C-alpha cells in the first residue's frame, strides 16, 4: 500500500475576491510522478506557492510526510525535504554555477568539504560540471533550468515540484528533461510536475490531476485523463480530442 507523502486537503486560496484555488484536494504517494495540468489561470502555480510556503491558503491543510506544513515558512519546508523550481528561472545571477548549488548543499552538510562533495555530485548528474565556474546569469535557458533543478537537488529533497520545467525547450532538450525526471524518480524522489508539454509528461506520469478555474475537475491515470470528455473540453483541446476519437474508433 503506497503511503501518501504530500496531501492537499480542501485547499482554498483567494486574492481579494478572486478564487485561485477552490477546495482542491489530492495526494501524491511516495515514489510517484504526478502531473498537475490545466489551462492558463487554472491555479497551478498558486497551488505550488501555497504548498511551498510562499502563500498561506485561506482554508484547508497541506500535510507533508505526516506533518502539517500549512503556513510554515519556505525554508522550514525545504528543510523537511520538499522543494520546487520556478516557471520563470531565477538563478542567483552573480554567483557561479557551483556557488549556486553550494548554497543549497550547505543545508544538510556538516562542513564545507561535504557541501563541496554534494555540489560536485549534483552538478555531474545534471551535466553542469563543465560549466561550474560560469556565472549563472550567462547560461543558456536549458542550462538555467538544469541549474534550477541542480540547486534544489543539493538540498537533498524527498519531493520536488517542477513548475513548467520544460517550457521553451527544444525537442532534444525536452527529451533530456524527461530522462532527468525519470532518473530523479529512480533515485527515490517523488515528483509533482506542472507542465503544458503533454507529449513529455503523459508518458512519464503515474497519475494526472487536472485543474480548471481553480477547481479540480479530474484525476486519474494518463490514459483516463486523455479520454476524459471534460478535460478535453476544458484543456486538451481538439488535437487530443481527435486523437482519442481515433484511438477509440480503432477499438
Amino acid at each position, binding site marked *: 500500500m503506497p503511503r501518501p507523502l504530500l496531501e492537499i486537503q480542501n485547499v482554498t486560496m483567494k486574492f481579494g475576491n478572486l478564487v485561485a484555488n477552490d477546495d482542491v484536494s489530492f495526494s501524491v504517494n511516495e515514489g510517484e510522478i504526478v502531473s498537475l495540468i490545466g489551462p492558463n489561470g487554472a491555479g497551478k502555480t498558486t497551488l505550488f506557492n501555497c504548498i511551498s510556503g510562499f502563500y498561506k491558503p485561506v482554508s484547508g491543510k497541506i500535510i507533508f510526510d505526516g506533518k502539517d506544513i500549512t503556513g510554515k515558512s519556505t525554508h522550514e519546508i525545504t528543510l523537511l525535504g520538499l522543494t520546487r523550481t520556478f516557471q520563470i528561472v531565477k538563478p542567483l545571477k552573480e554567483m557561479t554555477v557551483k556557488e549556486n548549488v553550494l548554497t543549497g548543499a550547505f543545508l544538510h552538510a556538516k562542513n564545507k568539504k561535504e557541501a563541496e562533495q554534494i555540489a560536485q555530485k549534483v552538478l555531474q548528474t545534471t551535466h553542469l560540471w563543465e560549466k561550474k565556474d560560469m556565472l549563472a546569469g550567462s547560461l543558456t535557458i536549458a542550462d538555467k533550468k538544469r541549474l534550477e533543478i541542480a540547486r534544489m537537488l543539493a*538540498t537533498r529533497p524527498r519531493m520536488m515540484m517542477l513548475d513548467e520545467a520544460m517550457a521553451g525547450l527544444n525537442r532534444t532538450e525536452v527529451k533530456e528533461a524527461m530522462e532527468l525526471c525519470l532518473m530523479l524518480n529512480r533515485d527515490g524522489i517523488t515528483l509533482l510536475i506542472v507542465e503544458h508539454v503533454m507529449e513529455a509528461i503523459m508518458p512519464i506520469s503515474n497519475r494526472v490531476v487536472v485543474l480548471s478555474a481553480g477547481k479540480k475537475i479530474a484525476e486519474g491515470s494518463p490514459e483516463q485523463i486523455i479520454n476524459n470528455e471534460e478535460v478535453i473540453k476544458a484543456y486538451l483541446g481538439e488535437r487530443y480530442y481527435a486523437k482519442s476519437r481515433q484511438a477509440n474508433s480503432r477499438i
Partner: protein
Amino acid sequence: MFLQVILTGALIGSVYSLVAVGLTLVWGLMDIINFAHGDMMMISMYTVFWLYTLLKFDPFVSLPISAGITALLGVLIYKFVIKRVVNAPGLMALLATFGLSLFIRNFAQFLWSPNYRFVGESILSGKRIFLADLIIGLPQLAAALGSIVMTFLIALFIKKTKTGKAIQATAQGRDIAELMGVNTEKIYAITFALSGICVGVAGTLLSGIFPVYPEAGAMYGLLAFVIVALGGFGNIWGAFYAGILIGLTEALGGFYLGTQFKYALAFLIYLLVLQFRPKGLFGW
C-alpha cells in the same frame, strides 16, 4: 608635504571605507537605506567614552564591547523597525530609518548633553612615528589598519563561509534562498549585526581621534552614502576603494582649497560620478 596630505587622506579614507562597508552590506542585501547607520557609530563612540570615563577602559580594550553593542543595536533595529517595513514600498523604510536616526541622535543629546567629549588617553594617543619627512600618528595608523583588516575579514566572511553564501543568495533572490533552506529573516538580522560591527569598530577607532558628541556620526553616515554610491551598491571592495578616494579628496581639497571646501569637494565628486556612471565607479 604632498605625500603627507596623501597619507593623511588615505588613513582617514580607510576608516570611511569601513563605515561604508557596513552600509553597503545592508543596502546591497535588502535594498534598504539605513539612515541611522552613522548614529549607530555615534553610540559606539559613546560606549568607548563611558567605558573610559567610568571604568578607565582603554579604547582598544573596549573594542569588542562597543562592537558587540552596535551589533546588538543593529539586530534590534532590524527586529523592531526594518522587519516591519522590509516588504513595504521603498520610501517607507527610508522614512522609518530617518525617523530612527533623529530619535537616536536626540535621545543621545537628552541623555548625554550636546557637549563635545574627549577620550583623553589611550595606549597610542600622542604617539607618532617619523618616516623620512612623513609624520604618522599612531592612533590614525591603528584606525586605518584596523579598518582595513575588518573590511578584509568581512569580505572573506561573505565570500567563503556558509553564512556568507546565504547572504549572497538572499541578496540575489530572497525566494530562491528560502527554497534552498536559508532562513532569510535570520540572514537579515545577521547582516544588520555585521553592519553594526563595522560601525562599532570604526567608531571605536575614531573615538581616540575625534570628539564624541551626539552629531558625531552624522557626517560619517552621509559620507558613507556617497561612498556606497561611488563604489556600487552592495559592492564591498568598491566601497573600500571609494572610501579611500573620498579620504584623499577630502585631504587634498582641504589642503589646497581650504578646509571649508573639503566635504563640498567629496559631494561634488559624487554628483559627477552619478552623472556619468550612475551605478558607481565600481558598479557593473
